[in-house]
């Protein structure tokens, strides 16, 4: 369950990055649809956070330690919203670049989460 969710969130993050990168390429700021996309990715990360904690509560142990696992889950959850707020304050192509960078960072975090969980 967690593995599948990690994969889905990672792919969604990359799609978001590509989409926002495309907007930046066309010299456009992030628009409503981009923010809806960010919301979808953020919800995925939130679900992942909840499921991850439930797994821990059930007594499962991540390979590389519980603290690191929870820290990465929280980081993954905060990542895209933080980039989204910054792109909200920067209504140029650079806001789109920042949102795209947020998607890339989340994808990297998902890869790390996969390693930490030991899938």
């Amino acid at each position, binding site marked *: 369950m967690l593995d599948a969710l990690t994969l889905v969130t990672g792919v969604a993050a990359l799609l978001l990055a590509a989409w926002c990168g495309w907007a930046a390429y066309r010299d456009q700021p992030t628009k409503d649809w981009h923010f809806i996309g960010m919301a979808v990715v953020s919800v995925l990360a939130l679900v992942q956070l909840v499921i991850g904690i439930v797994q821990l509560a059930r007594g499962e142990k991540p390979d590389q330690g519980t603290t690191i696992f929870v*820290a990465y889950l929280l980081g993954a959850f905060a990542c895209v919203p*933080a980039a989204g707020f910054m*792109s909200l*304050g920067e209504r140029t192509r*650079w806001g789109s*670049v920042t949102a795209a960078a*947020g998607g890339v*960072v989340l994808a990297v975090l998902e890869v790390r989460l996969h390693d930490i969980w030991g899938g």
Partner: protein
Amino acid sequence: MTSGEAEVATGDGSTGRSGRLTSGPGTLLVWLYGVMVVGAVSRSAYQIATEFDRAPLAYSLSAVAGVVYGFITYTLVRGSEGARRAAQVCCAAELAGVLIVGTWTLIEPSAFPDATVWSKYGMGYVFIPVLLPVSALYWLRRSRDPERSVRG
């Protein structure tokens, strides 16, 4: 944050255009520096708290890197001319740090039983640690206050 901006305006008598360094490409820089702050600080805090004896040098260097990143982020957000200069100095120091530690980890891997943020020029962080100071220095040079940089 508003009180900080007021200080900038009165403190050095500049026009105090707040957000000067955080607009445009600066947004991306602040975001990436923010990510590096969280990454380096939380990583070193965890490692120093749990397994400091294993690789004291590596973990201390990560902590120093985290502090430098934090300070640069702060100066970018402040955006006054003084902050811009301080950021330039720190970015230069950061670049030197990445290059020195990166080379060091390649020549003498035994000094580092565990990786730092700057190991192998930041390979574990998609080379962001080495690319970031270069682009930041470029950005800081370009956003110099025209009227204040005539000679000074």
